[in-house]
Each structure stands twice: as structure tokens, then as C-alpha cells.
């Protein structure tokens, strides 16, 4: 009898374990990998981040309007700053849940596979993402971000702390990135084709950008960062060939601008920049703007920012200029950080006395670099630089650099907007039809979902930074 019981139990035990095994196997997901490869993640992270950075919500339909590069010719609500707290969710959701999450996984895999170059590249890209977030929203989660196992409701770090944090991250990226021939290689790098030297240049150029971002508030830190780079013997991006950018491909991998114009016809170039380019006889005008569809006396006609629907409609779709063919091309790049920007940054660092370089010389080089970015060379460039309105003004470097940088950053809405807020040049005015009492937005509103999903930390951020409004100035925006 005892034996019988034992046998029954044994049979049951075997039956259960074989069932368990079978049930385990049924539940293995046949549709998606559980363990990713770092190279595929890297491609995904670069592509997804670039799409959102250069895409409709963060660029065409917001920052490019705020800096008056572009204007709306139809459905002009955004150009009049009519936004809600669901208007600015894309940068937050893609930035954190796609970019930061994917890059963190690359870092984890890089550590496990002892490939510091993956780690370095991921740190550089992640720092850029955090920079975009901090520039746009102000205080944002950084130290507790992307760590769901520990933090379901991440605290918002102060904007200053985010900048300091990513400066450290970039410094360590810089130190782990190893371009030596024998070092571990990376794949899936659709920006620099695995060339670690250029990643190091990009990392340093980002550090320079951040150093200047905080220069009005923390000049000592700014100088220290620039000195540190110099001490390390670091290089910056040194030619337009090695701009940090993603060059898009034919559909379906086309540039987000091209994708938008395939199905919609909402945007035109802004009258503000068209007027400026006309005034300076800027050879970049035909690059930045298309000729109007109907023949008009001027060929290039901008739409005034903040037009009402009927005002814009009165000018008409056929009598106003779309952005230039360069920008509408499906293969156009999404520029993250250009050689021209590096030169402007170096000029400003010199002007602020952080370095001993020649500010004016760098300023001119920067303008030349911007021209050569669009393959514009020759005497036009010299004539342009030599005209009085373009000449470098050492007494007001912010104006000289601000205005030229604004032109050079055409299309890079988020960066142009950050720099315009910081340098306060060019001085832009809001249309009377806008709804912020004559002000232009100086930040994004937090996604409305933060109120419900991370309410306490959201409230803390608001009480520390100021009301969650488009017009609340951010920490770096000193003037």
C-alpha cells in the first residue's frame, strides 16, 4: 500500500514536471527577441531620436515657429501659440521611453560584453537626449530616469543638475571611447559608420555647447569644461563632412520634413527670416526657401508668423514659399551638431574670455562653414561676410553671433530656439494674434500625463521652477 502511494505520487510528479515544461515552452514569445544586440539597438536609437528631434511636434509645429524660421499657412493655431498639455508629449515619450531606454540597454550590454565603445557612443547620444529634454522643459528626471525597477515615479532634477550630470557623462564617454585599431569595434552606427574618432569629436562639441548653455549662469563651470577638453587634448568637429547628423534615405526612411509635405501642406518659410535674408542679400535664401508656385515679384515670400487662418489664407498657398528643396528632399540630413555651430561656439567662448582664440576670426569661419554646409562658395561668401551688417561687433558679440547663428541653424528648430532664448538675438516679436500677451514661448509644457502619473514630483518641479506655462523662463535663460 505504501508503495502504491509512492508510485502514484511519483507518476503525478513526473506528469506535473513535464506539463510545466510544456507550458513554459508554449509561453516563449515567438515574435520578438528577449535579448537584443547592441548594434541593432544603436541603429534604432539614432533613427527614433532623430525622427522625433527633426519631426513635426518638436520641430515643424513648435520650435521652428517660435524662432520664426517657419510659419504656418493652414491650421495656424500652433503659430499663435495655442497649445495644450498634450502638445509636447513626443519629445518626452520618445526621449525617455525609446532613446534613453534603448541607450541604457546598450550601456548594459556593452559592460557585459566589455565593449567600451558601445558604452561611450550610447553615453554621448543619451547626453544629447537629456540636453534636448532639459532645454525644452527645464527640470526633468535625470538621475532616476530610465530605472523602472527602482523608480516608478522618478524625481525631477533641477535643470542645472541635469546639465552638470551630462557634462560628467560626456567626460566619461570621452575617456572610454577608444579609436585605436585594436579596440573593440561597433556596428549599427548610421551616423559615423563606427568611426570612434568622430564620436569623440561629437562628444567634445556637445560639451562645448553645454558649457555655453550655462555660461550666463555658471561662467566658472563653463570655462572649466572648456579647459578640461583642452587639457584632455580633445578635438571638436572639424569639418562639415563630419557633422553630427543622420542622413535620411528614400521612403520609407525619408526625412520627416519630406514625409510631412507628402501628405500635408501646412508650412511655409517665415516672413521674418525671408526679410532678414533679403536684407543681407544672403545667398542661402534659395537654399532655405522655394520659389512661390505662382510667379510673384519677389519669388520668395514668407508668411508672417502668427497669422490667423484667414490672414494666411489671404496670402495663399500658391503665393508663399515652401522651405527649400534641400530641406524637402527625402534624403536630407537631420543635423544634430554642425561644424558651423562649433565655430560659433568657439567664437563665443573666446568673446567671453574663456579661451584666448580670436573671436572675430572664428565668427567669420563659422559663417563660411555654414555656407559650405550648403556647398555655397566663392566671392558671394566674401562679399557677404564683408558687409557692415554682418561684421563682427566685439561690443555686442551676442547680437553678432546670435543673428548669424540663428541663420546658420535654419531647420534645427530646437537648437536655434535654445540659442535664441539664451543669446536674446535676433530679437523676435510675437504677432498680435498670438495668445501669450505678446510673448514667445520659452519652454515646452510638461506632458499632461505627468500630472496624473508622476503628480508629486511634477508638483515639486513646478513649485521649484515656476508655473507650468509656455512663458516661464528656464534656469539657463538668464536674460
Amino acid at each position, binding site marked *: 500500500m505504501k508503495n502504491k502511494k509512492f508510485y502514484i505520487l511519483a507518476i503525478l510528479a513526473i506528469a506535473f514536471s513535464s506539463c510545466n515544461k510544456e507550458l513554459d515552452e508554449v509561453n516563449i514569445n515567438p*515574435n520578438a527577441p528577449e535579448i537584443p544586440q547592441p548594434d541593432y539597438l544603436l541603429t534604432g536609437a539614432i533613427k527614433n531620436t532623430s525622427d522625433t528631434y527633426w519631426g513635426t511636434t518638436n520641430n515643424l509645429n513648435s520650435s521652428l515657429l517660435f524662432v520664426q524660421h517657419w510659419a504656418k499657412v493652414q491650421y495656424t493655431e500652433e503659430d499663435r501659440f495655442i497649445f495644450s498639455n498634450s502638445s509636447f508629449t513626443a519629445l518626452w515619450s520618445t526621449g525617455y521611453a525609446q532613446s534613453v531606454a534603448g541607450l541604457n540597454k546598450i550601456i548594459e550590454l556593452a559592460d557585459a560584453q566589455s565593449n567600451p565603445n558601445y558604452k561611450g557612443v550610447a553615453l554621448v547620444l543619451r547626453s544629447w537626449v537629456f540636453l534636448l529634454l532639459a532645454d525644452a522643459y527645464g527640470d526633468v528626471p535625470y538621475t532616476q530616469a530610465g530605472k523602472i525597477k527602482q523608480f516608478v515615479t522618478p524625481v525631477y532634477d533641477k535643470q542645472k543638475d541635469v546639465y552638470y550630470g551630462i557634462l560628467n557623462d560626456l567626460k566619461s564617454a570621452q575617456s572610454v571611447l577608444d579609436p585605436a585599431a585594436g579596440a573593440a569595434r561597433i556596428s549599427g552606427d548610421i551616423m559615423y559608420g563606427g568611426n570612434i574618432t568622430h564620436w569623440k569629436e561629437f562628444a567634445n562639441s556637445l560639451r562645448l555647447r553645454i558649457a555655453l548653455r550655462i555660461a550666463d549662469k555658471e561662467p566658472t563651470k563653463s570655462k572649466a569644461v572648456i579647459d578640461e577638453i583642452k587639457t584632455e587634448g580633445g578635438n571638436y568637429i572639424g569639418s562639415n563632412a563630419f557633422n553630427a547628423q543622420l542622413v535620411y534615405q528614400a521612403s520609407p526612411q525619408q526625412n520627416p520634413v519630406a514625409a510631412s509635405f507628402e501628405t500635408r501642406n501646412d508650412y511655409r518659410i517665415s516672413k521674418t527670416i525671408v526679410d532678414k535674408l533679403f536684407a543681407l542679400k544672403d545667398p542661402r535664401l534659395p537654399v532655405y526657401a522655394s520659389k512661390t508656385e505662382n510667379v510673384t515679384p519677389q519669388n520668395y515670400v514668407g508668411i508672417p508668423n502668427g497669422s490667423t487662418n484667414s490672414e494666411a489664407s489671404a496670402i495663399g498657398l500658391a503665393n508663399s514659399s515652401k522651405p527649400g528643396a534641400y530641406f524637402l528632399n527625402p534624403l536630407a540630413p537631420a543635423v544634430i551638431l554642425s561644424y558651423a555651430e562649433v565655430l560659433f561656439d568657439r567664437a563665443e567662448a573666446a568673446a567671453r574670455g574663456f579661451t584666448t582664440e580670436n573671436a572675430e576670426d572664428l565668427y567669420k569661419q563659422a559663417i563660411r562653414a555654414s555656407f559650405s554646409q550648403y556647398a555655397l562658395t566663392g566671392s558671394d561668401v566674401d562679399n557677404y561676410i564683408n558687409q557692415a551688417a554682418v561684421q563682427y561687433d566685439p561690443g555686442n558679440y551676442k547680437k553678432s553671433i546670435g543673428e548669424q547663428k540663428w541663420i546658420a541653424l535654419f531647420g534645427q528648430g530646437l537648437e536655434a530656439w535654445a540659442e535664441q532664448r539664451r543669446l536674446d538675438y535676433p530679437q523676435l516679436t510675437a504677432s498680435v494674434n498670438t495668445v501669450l500677451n505678446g510673448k514667445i514661448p520659452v519652454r515646452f509644457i510638461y506632458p499632461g500625463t505627468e500630472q496624473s502619473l508622476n503628480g508629486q514630483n511634477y508638483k515639486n518641479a513646478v513649485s521649484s521652477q515656476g508655473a507650468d506655462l509656455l512663458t516661464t523662463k528656464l534656469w539657463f535663460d538668464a536674460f
Partner: protein
Amino acid sequence: MIKIFKSIALILLLFITQQLFAQNATITGTVKSADGETLPGVSIFIKETKQTTITDGKGAFSISAPEKGTLVFSYIGFKTQEIQISKNGPVSVVLQSSDNALDEVVVTALGISRQKKSLGYAVQELKGQDLAEAKESNLVNALAGKIAGVRVTNSQGSMGSSRVVIRGETSIAGNNQPLFVVDGIPVDNSQLNSAGARDYANTISDINPEDIESISVLKGPNAAALYGSRAAAGVILIKTKTGKSKKGLGIAVNSNAVLETLLTLPVYQNAFGQGSEGRFSYVDGAGKGLNDGVDESWGPKLDGRLIPQFYSKGVAVPFVAHPDNVRDFFQTGYSLNNGVSVADAGEKYDYRISYNNLKQVGIVPNSGQGKNSFVFNTSLKITPKLTLTANANYSKLNSDNLPGTGGSRSTSTMLQFTWFGRQVDINQLKNYLDENGKTFNWNNSYYSNPYWVAYENTVSQNRNRIIGSLALNYKIIDGLDFNFRSGTDYYNDRRKVRIAYGTNGTPFGSYTESAFTVNENNTDATLNFNKQLNEDFSLELLGGGNIRTQSIEQNDQSAPKLAIAGLYTLKNSRDPLISSNNLSRLKSYSVYASGQIGFRNYLFANITARNDWSSTLPAQNRSYFYPSFNGSFVATEAFDIKSEALTYLKIRGGWSKVGKDADPYRLINTYAFGAPFNINPDLLKLYPDIVGANPQLSPGAIDLNPNLKPETTTSTELGVEAVFFNKRLRFDLSAYNTNSYNQILAADVSQSTGFSSKLLNAGKINNKGIEAQLGITPIKKAFTWDIDFNFAANRSRVIELDAEKLLTNYVVASSSAQVIATVGQPYGSLFGTAFLRDGNGNIIVNATGAPATNPNKQVLGKYTPDWIGGVYNTFTYKGLSLGVLVDASIGGSIYNGTYSTGTYTGVLASTLPGRAAEYGGISYYYPGNDKTKGTVRVNGTAPAGVTVYDDGIIFDGVTADGKPNDKILPAQQYYKTFRNIDESSIFDASYVKLREVKLSYNLPAKWIRPLSLQGVSVSLVGRNLWIIHRNTVDIDPEVAFNTGNGQGLESLSNPSTRSYGINLNVKF
């Protein structure tokens, strides 16, 4: 697993063989019903010796009994009869059917028939005839208003989906629809995505109502615990017709025709046409003319002034309203349904074969579908002890095009009509191609011609489905049966989505093929034991096991841009094809047991227990057990009350627990593929190391949970059933309290965590409610009048979301407003932007005089109703019967997306007030005609030289410092401000509807007998005839766009419809 079944069988056998018998003289006999049918399975009990037996298939029995013993015959649905054994020889017994509803037999879980009085929970049945005559092609709709606690929401017309929820939502994130079981086989009722912006019908609509004998609704876990995992939301048991009830060959022919017309449309204004700020002139409809790219109706007055329009080729023609320009787009839909069935039964067999054909044409031009179904049911008595039953149901659904829904500009029906210029003459659009073969439309900046959308951008659907089962019943000994049943539900569903070349917004068109293969298999083995233990006690026992597998496979292929126009094949693609596939599988093992002990036919105790092992849970939490208990007490029998006034009184109650597993693959995070990124040659030159094609992976949006536990629902139910005055007054009341916890839900988290959501195992929701049915028969003569009321009120409350209490909201669905589950609130809160108000509730306006938006989103209502109910009046006189069903859903809110959009676009009649002096507009001007200076009211006369406008409106609010608002806004600006304030589009969703009117006539036998017919009935049926009461404007408040939990967010839904038709049924 088989070992487990065997050990259970062994235990049961041991139990049974202990019943020993003493022998006496043998009594034989037969048992028949009053109408002469033999009755198999009648229990026979000898009072003196406690011996029992049951009748065989021919109603015959044989039992040894003492010579002067008493035989007690009892059979479900018949009055118990005692006879004294007076002599030897065959006994002939006729059992009288118990007229008492109280001995009514109902089908319960696992298809077990039970006396209703023995059940400790509520169960309600609907007979097949009610369904067949209701003429709903989606059988779910026929339940609306008839069964207490069952809430049905129909999307649109007869081809869309319908959602059914019993006793409220018990699962925060999961499926809240009941399980459907057809002849013992669980069948799929999912609604597989909505490719091509179509509202695909939920798949239970494949079952032809003509083939249904009865529907039994098991409300909630108490009744359905034996079904386990999927019982928490209740079970709808469908029993199909068989040949059993026939005496000899019977043929039935059924034919009906139903017309379908519009029930609701938005109410449009007809005073102002297309344009903006009163100005409009057409050149190309895309911005070349004056506001001709503006697809809104803020244009000039429709007073016949001469303006070039889209069809006039630059000629100025009268600008006049076309009040029915939307209505005229729709056509009268119809459906033709023809079926024939043959049934026969002999001594050793019975069968029924039916064929049904349905052809439907929708109200949207070029929409329709066809259904063919074949059903074959048979049972064979292989040996006296062994019976084989086989059921097969094959259905084929075919549609060339289903009506476009939702808000996609290339496919939607109602999107364009909420932006439709009020001057547009739809007749000018019927020819939808211009001379160049391009879309010809009133607006070319955003839309294609609505007929182009209907005829060129089509979605076809083709579903082939088979539901089949084989069952064996073996009578081991008297009272002990072994049952084995294996069944499958298998279907293929293919959709072909065409967007034509030249469609506005999709200039190259596109073509997508979607295919689903769905399969569920269930195999059950059970042992059933029934025995009258002695005079006082009866016992029914059941033990068994189930193996279930389910797989859902989806394959999608898409040509995102066509290479050449008009050719719909995947190879005709300009860009690389986009493909995806997904396979989802699950498997579970279960063992279960149930028992009932009855005492003297008035006191019953029921117990069930089940243990599941599911593949979707981690090994350590895979096995979960859940029991239920319930009992009933029939007071009238216990106290032997035989009063006319109190005919029947029963009290019942029970407690149950059910477990529920997860969806497949919810344990370990995975990464998603993106299309490979192909580097161009230039970059390859620059970076020789680079690889040409780079696959992409991205993190998943949900942080999955390797430690998932099963969801658990416990429910307590109490009820009273009472019958008064000889059944003239019938009353049934239930109260229940259901707690669902450990809920598996992907709660949204701040994306700064790196994920959009996190799979939790924590949520807790409580539902409590009451259900009442009241039947009254005021007149019961040759003319009979029955009134059946049903009423149900459910109160839900979300108790918590996560154990750490970090999360307060779970987002169920989002459009402009959201549906959320928020802690401390009822399930299904509507959440969105609200007016900013001061302490006194006054709306605060901003500097321009427009209402300000509260920066904090608010709970604006809930979509679930406070109560639902129906009143069914039936009048019968001889063969004539009239049924009238009115049903109501009271309370709850809806976000009216049509109103929100239509207010913005100025097409709705509700945007008329203030738009001109004759509509109450205030006269104002801008000082010096400078709009930046703001509006000034004209008091007396305006200064010379300024333009005076008469469309001023002052919003009824206060300024931030509490003063009454006095800023005048132009009407267009005024109405547009509400777009961003969801609160302004929240409406009370209550409705009262005349749901069904049915007049049927059974021709008298004396008329049809000479024609050798057995029965002829004719009926006239109208459905959804009239919305008697509603508090919404512009839409039918009873809208669902799918069968998911995200209800209450109306978004440009297609108009609902009424239908009326004639039905003819002939039996040979």
C-alpha cells in the same frame, strides 16, 4: 494530466460501488409525458428499499421492488409522481409536466441541466424564437433590454460590433465581455483590430440566430465558476437546435426582409456656408481662392449671393444651403435572410441540418456583406449505453466593402461630414472623378470626394469559420455517466485594404492585406453521478478535466505606396513592403468538480472547485485553485405553503472565487523590430566600415512582469424569487458584491521611467449591484397581457491600482478626453481638460474674454450608467402576439466628439446663436478698424469709418478678479475656444429607446393543415425605432466603436440606424 483524470475517476467509482442493492421481484414499465413522448432518464426511487434506477432511452425501466412498495418517479420539468405497486406486470406511467415555473430547468455551467430552484445564483434564459424574430444579424443585440444586468452597446447599423457586459466591468484592463459557449464549446468573440478604419463585427455574430434554441446567461462568477479563467465576466451559453424535439421529419423555411434607415444625424445649421470670417470664393479648393482651402462653415450667409463654387468653373452662382446634403449621402440599407432546415429523429438517431443565407446592404453607399452558414447536429445511439453527438457549424462571411468609420481622412464616413460646407450640393459630387480622372471635390486641401472614399477606398473581409465538436456519452451504470467532448473553433479572417492612388493625404494610395487565423480547442472528460440517495436526499456529482489550447496568428503585408494606380497587389509597390506577423499561443490544463446535495426538494447545497494550470503564468504561480458554494431554500415547499397568493418563494445565496490567467508572453521584456535602415553609397564611401543595411531594435513600451500571479475575483450573491397569485406576479431580486484583485494591468507610468507602462499585478476593483425582474400578467384570458420589467444598477469603485499606491490613474483609452480608472472613483471615469472656475463655480475668462482652461485635467464624468432596464409588454390573442420593448440606460456621460468638432467647424445648428444680429449677435467694431485694439460694443451709433460686425458674443464668465466678463468675441472665435476644453463636449449619456416592436401571427391549424403544413407564422419586426429620450445632441448616446473597455468617447461615429422588416416562417 491524464493520470489526474484517472485518479479522479477512480475516486468516483469507489464512491459509487459502495451502494449495494437487495433484490426482490422485478417491476418493469415505461414512462411517458402527457403528450405521449417517452421520457428517458426519469429517476425512479423505491421508498421502502431506497433502491433507485432511471429509465432508458425508450422510457423503459426495470427494478426489483417489494410487492407492496411505492415507486417515486421524478424528472426535471415534470411533477413528481408516486405509484403503489399493486400487481406484477408492466407499469405505464404518465408524468404531468410541471406547469410551475418553479420546476423550470435551466442550462448551467458545462451544459449541465439543473432545476432552477436548486441554484443559489441568478440565471436567465432567452428562447430561440425571441432571437430569430428579433432579426438582428449580430445576436448580441437581441439581448439588449431583455435580461437584467446585461448591458449591450451597439456601434452603428447592423454590420458593426456590439459590446456586451454583464454586471459591470470587473477587470480594469482585461476583457470584460462574457465567455460565449456554443453547445459546450467555448467560442471566440474577439474583435480583431480595425485595419482600414472599419468596425469589424465581434465574431459571435457568425452564429445564425435561426439556429439557436436557447441562450442561458450566467451572470458573473457565482454562476459560472466552473468555467474558471474566463467566468469572471459571466458566460453566455448558447444551445443550438437539434432534431430531438421533432417527431419524424420536419422541414422549416424562414425568410425575412429588413429595411434599415438613419436614426440619428447631427443637426446642422443652414444659415452660413463654407469659409472663414464671412468670406469665401472658390478657385481650386486648396487655398488659391478666398478661404477655399478652409474646410469650415464660417463663411458668408447662405442668402443666395453669387459666389464661384466648386462645380461652377469660376462662374459666380447662388450661395444657398443644402440642408440635407449629409442625409442624402446615405441610402436605405436592407437585408435579406433566407434559411431552410431539416430535422428528423428516430429511435437511435436524430439530426438537424440547416442552411442560411444573409445578404446585407448598408446605409453607406457601396457597403454590404453576405453570410452563409451551414449547421449540422446529430446524435447516434451506438449501443444502448453509448451515444455519440456531433455538431458542426460552418459559416462564411464575405464583404466587398464595410462602411468606413472613425477619423481617418482617407476612409472615414463622418469625418468629412463634420467639416462639410453647408452650401455643398452633394448631388454635384456623385460623379466623383473630374475630366482628368482625379478626385473632384468641394475641398481639395484635405479631403477626397466622399463618394471616392466610399467607392475607391474599400476594405473587404472574408471569414471562413468552423465550430465543431464530437461528444461521447457512456452510461457506466445507472446514474453514472462518462462524457467526453472535444471541440474546435477555427477561423480564417482576411481583409484587403485599398486606398486609391490620388487620395488626398495618401497621394500614392496603398494596399494592405491582413490575415488572422484563430483556433481554440477544448477537450473535456467528465464523470457525472446522479442519485436519489433516499427519500430525503438527492446527490449529483461531477468531476472532470479540461485541456485548452488557443492560438491567434496575424499576418500583415502592406504596399505603403502603389507604383501604378488601380492595381491592388502587393507587388505593385513603390516602397519596400511592410510586413509583420504575430503568433500568440496559450495552453491550459484544468481539473474540476462539482456537487449538489438536495434535501426533500426544497433545500439544496452546491459546491464547485477548479484548479487551472496556465501557460501564461510563471511556473511558480501557474497553478491556481478556486472554489464556490451556493445554496437555495424553497420556503413554499419547506413549509408546505399552498396559497394562491404566495405561490412560490425561494431564497438563495452563494460565494465564489475565480482565477484568471494573463495574456500570453507577459513575463519577459522583448524588443521591437523596425525596418532596416539602408545607408546610401555616399556614406559608405565616407565610412568604409559601415554596413549597408542596419536592422533596428527598440525597447518595448511595457515593462513586463516575470512574477505574475493569476487575477482573482470573488463574488457574493444573494437573491429572492417569489411568485404570487398563481404566477400573475413574478419577482426575482439579486444583490451581489464582487471584488476583483491582483489584476493584471499595464498601468501607464511616467515615460521618464523608460517605459510607457508597467505590467502590474495589483489593481483592485469592487462592483456591487442589484438586479430585479418583475413580471406581471394583468390579463390572462383568451387575451393575455404580460409585462416584464428588468432593472439593474451596478456601482463600481476602483480601490487601488498598485500595492505601493504610487499610481492613481490607469488610462483605459484616449482620444481628446481619456477614459481612466482612477482610485476612489467608479470605473470608466472620463478625464480631460475643464473650464477654469473660481470658488463660486463661475467660469473664469482670460484677457480676450475667452474661457480659460484649467491647467489640471479633471474627472468630468463616467461612462458607465447608473442603471439600465427594460420593459417588455406582450399582448397575445389566439395566434396573434404583439411585443413592445422599451429599454433605458440612465446616467453616465459621453464625450461627444462630433459636437466638439462640429462646434469648431461651425456646421452644427448649435453654433447659430450669436452669429448675426438675427441670431442674437452683439454689434461691435474695432477702433480705427485695428483688430489689435480689441472689440468695442456699439452703443447707439458706431464712430464713422469703422466696420461694424454683428456676430459678437460675450461668454458668460468672470474675469480673474471676479468681475463679469464684458469682452465681445466674434462668433467664430467664440465657438472655436471650446475645442480645447473637453468639459464643453461632455454630455449626459442617458437614453430611453423604443428598442423592439414585434407583431407576429401564427396561422390557425385548421387553415394550414389542409396544405399539409405544420405551422406558419408571419411577423413584423421593428428595431431601434425611436430614441424616446436623450440628453445628447447630434449623436446617438448608445455608441461603441469597438468591444473594448474604452467606451464613452464618441468620435465621429457613423449614424445609428432603425430597422423594420417582415419575417415568414413555414414548417412542413
